[in-house]
């Protein structure tokens, strides 16, 4: 443990912790744009600069580690001016499109501009027109909204190990893009959407969530992914009884906030028009709609008949490894206690 002072408060934190992580732990907010707990410190955006007693210049708190006896100030007049200038510079080359931008309400740039009270932009100059038309089914790329924090480049390279993006071109023209500036569908992209999950602005957004709802109109429910056995934790974002997006908390859960293509984008089946909405009973060779009472009575009568005529072991149950523990428990109880057979299995073998 190391002892240090932050905004006059004395605190003990684990050795090796960055000032930003320590501040987070202590509930002190430092603005940042290029930081993601899944990524190595980058020190690119300079918004998390803090003042350290004895240091010549402000230092990026995402990269600097806490040392014994260190005295840190996170919110001085100088820091405020530096941050405001940085945000003004970013906004001078950013479309003022917040009214309809997909990321409004969950945009880190928008939040920081608001918190710093940036209303007038003192810099005027050329703006990017980089919007990319990408036929990818999931990733919308609006590169004129990119602030070149390289989070997409870094998460794709260091976490997803795909290296689809790189920072291309020079100077003012610099943007993250694919090899030869081709669409994602022509790269080795696996459409995990990790780049969307880390992008702080509206430059990378989910195509299938566009215009479906604003953050303040939606509910969020933490749950477990229904696909493979890893058990990734995710947030179902719902509006008016429908899932409109899946998000994660970076760094959290067994998956540390990472997801694959199925986990992040594979929710469309829930409200698919082919979902079974009523019971069916086969009559004259065809499956016909039936009421719950009709269907359940029919099942009970027929199961009793089979049990009476041929014994309980003439009945078999296949339980589901897609269903919950509780449901599997109840179905095997039904087989064993209500019918009296051990003919119950699940698809563990398949």
């Amino acid at each position, binding site marked *: 443990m190391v002892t240090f002072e932050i905004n006059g408060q004395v605190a003990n934190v684990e050795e090796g912790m960055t000032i930003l992580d320590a501040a987070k732990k202590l509930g002190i907010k430092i603005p940042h744009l290029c930081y993601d707990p899944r990524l190595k410190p980058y020190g690119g955006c300079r918004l998390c600069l803090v003042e350290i007693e004895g240091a010549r210049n402000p230092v990026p708190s995402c990269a600097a580690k806490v040392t014994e006896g260190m005295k840190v100030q996170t919110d001085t007049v100088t820091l405020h001016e530096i941050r405001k200038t940085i945000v003004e510079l970013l906004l001078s080359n950013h479309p003022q499109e917040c009214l309809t931008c997909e990321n409004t309400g969950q945009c880190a740039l928008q939040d920081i501009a608001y918190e710093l009270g940036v209303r007038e932009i003192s810099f005027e100059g050329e703006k990017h027109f980089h919007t990319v038309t990408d036929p990818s089914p999931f990733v919308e790329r609006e590169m004129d909204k990119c602030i070149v924090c390289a989070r997409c480049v870094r998460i794709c390279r260091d976490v997803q190990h795909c290296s689809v993006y790189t920072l291309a071109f020079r100077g003012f023209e610099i943007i993250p893009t694919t090899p030869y500036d081709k669409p994602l569908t022509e790269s080795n992209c696996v459409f995990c959407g990790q780049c969307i999950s880390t992008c702080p602005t509206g430059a990378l957004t989910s195509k299938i969530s566009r215009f479906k709802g604003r953050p303040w109109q939606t509910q969020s429910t933490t749950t477990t992914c229904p696909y493979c056995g890893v*058990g990734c934790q995710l947030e179902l974002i719902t509006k008016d009884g429908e899932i409109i997006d899946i998000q994660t908390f970076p760094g959290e859960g067994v998956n540390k906030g990472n997801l694959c*293509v199925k986990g992040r984008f594979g929710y469309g089946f829930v409200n698919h028009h082919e979902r079974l909405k009523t019971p069916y009973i086969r009559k004259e060779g065809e499956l016909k709609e039936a009421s719950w009472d009709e269907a359940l009575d029919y*099942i009970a009568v027929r199961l009793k008949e089979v049990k009476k005529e041929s014994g309980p*072991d003439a009945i078999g149950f296949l*339980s589901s490894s897609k269903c919950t523990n509780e449901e599997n428990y109840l179905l*095997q*109880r039904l087989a064993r206690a209500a019918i009296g057979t051990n003919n119950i299995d699940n698809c*563990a073998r398949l």
Partner: protein
Amino acid sequence: MAGLAAAFGSGAMTNSIADIPKADVILITGSNTTEAHPVLALEIISAVKNGAKLIVIEPRRIKMADYADIYISQKPGTDVELYNAMMNVIITEGLTDKDFIKARTEDFDALEKTLKKYTPEKASKICGVPADTIVEAARLYAKAGAATIIYAMGITQHTTGVDNVLTMANLAMMTGNIGREGTGVNPLRGQNNVQGACDMGALPNVLPGYVRVDDKDGRKKMEEAWGVKKLPDKPGLTAPEMIDAAANGDIKAMFILGENPMLSEANLVHTEIGLGNLDLLVVQDIFMTETANLADVVLPGASFAEKSGTFTNTERRVQPIRQAVEPVGSALPDWMIITMIAKRLGHKMEYRSPSEVTDEITHVVSQYGGITSHRVAKCGISWPCPTPEHPGTPILHKDKFVRGKGKFHAVEYRPPAEVTDKDYPLILTTGRYLQQFHTGTMTRRVAGIEDLAPRCKVQVHPADARKYKVNDGDMIRVTTRRGSIEAAADVTDTIRQGVIYMPFHYAEAAANTLTNAALDPVAKIPEFKVCAANIEPKNL
């Protein structure tokens, strides 16, 4: 699972996902990790980038092989021969952990004797792998401070599946790679709650908590909990056996919850005969699946987003699922439907919510004793967790094995049930795509996903493509003794010559029409990974 249970006393993953980066050497076999467990694969690749050594043993050159220090492409179905040869090297070169073998295990002598004849030179011929590579892999694994084995269904889906798993257990125990951080034998579960379904006793030979059905005291505990006089004491039938019993008339009614055997069972023609022969087939699902289409009664269940409960992931971690939306139409949560049927059969099951079932489970399943609905709502907990104060168990077999001593099994190599011949000269092996899931019931209905992986492709080695006159992208016919399907050829050198590969997601080109339903004698797992096949251009 049967294999690990015999060796260690528990069939579950021994270590946690978070533990993988602590390994010095990672051995992946029979797992196409980047496609079937993509987020877990990220951890493995990160570990390799941070200095861990990686051995990949897999007939196809999967993505993981790109990161491997040693990559071995063995002939499908020759795993026992290969691993026995690795262990032969480890013993010959004195790389065993003698203290561990002496203190923690039994029956090593019989194994040592059996392994004598498994020289790398002999294995080289049977497995189609250079003998030197076998020696290198054996040395790398055995010399590691901590080595972990990660496997999936490429190991288990064989008629020698249990033997394959036993060789994994032998390898780990003889080198002392079990019960510590960064070690272990770790089977990855393919579906979200396979682990939980097994834990809950949705298996024919065990009650909840792996209590054998012939254990009188175990039955008595359940009889009291469920208010019944006598539970059946003889093991029931496994899924493939039920299909056989349906075909010959011994099983007359089946209730299938959220499964689609009409795509997932081996030998689909036989599966359809079995299910078609039933007097009563009830299917409870969220879509009209290929199986539901054959049913007499279909019940609409709820999807994961429309109900609450818990799933147990591959590392034994029990985690909550929470309702976010209402079930569609008049669909009902599956737990509720089961209680309604029980009531009509005269067996009372009264629960107001799934959390009451979660709490009942804590009373009857000792491993879940401390995993209450209240605790699990806050965070995931890995079983065994016997009491409400217990923190859970990320690493099994720490000071002693669940069964007491770890048991070595002297396993001999047996060839697969079906080997190639003049009429069927190629080996067919099956698997999954990253984008699609299992029988595609869910993913094939998701627009963008279906765009990314719209159709089944059959991987064919370029030399075989020339031999059988098929071109990349052409429709070809794949035939086995059980049937034939048509699909596009994907000519690629990532597959071994003489082997073809296809996924089983697609109903219109159902791989399991072709696969062999021959079962492992103990685990009763069909041999999805090896059968003999032939290919020809479609227009012939």
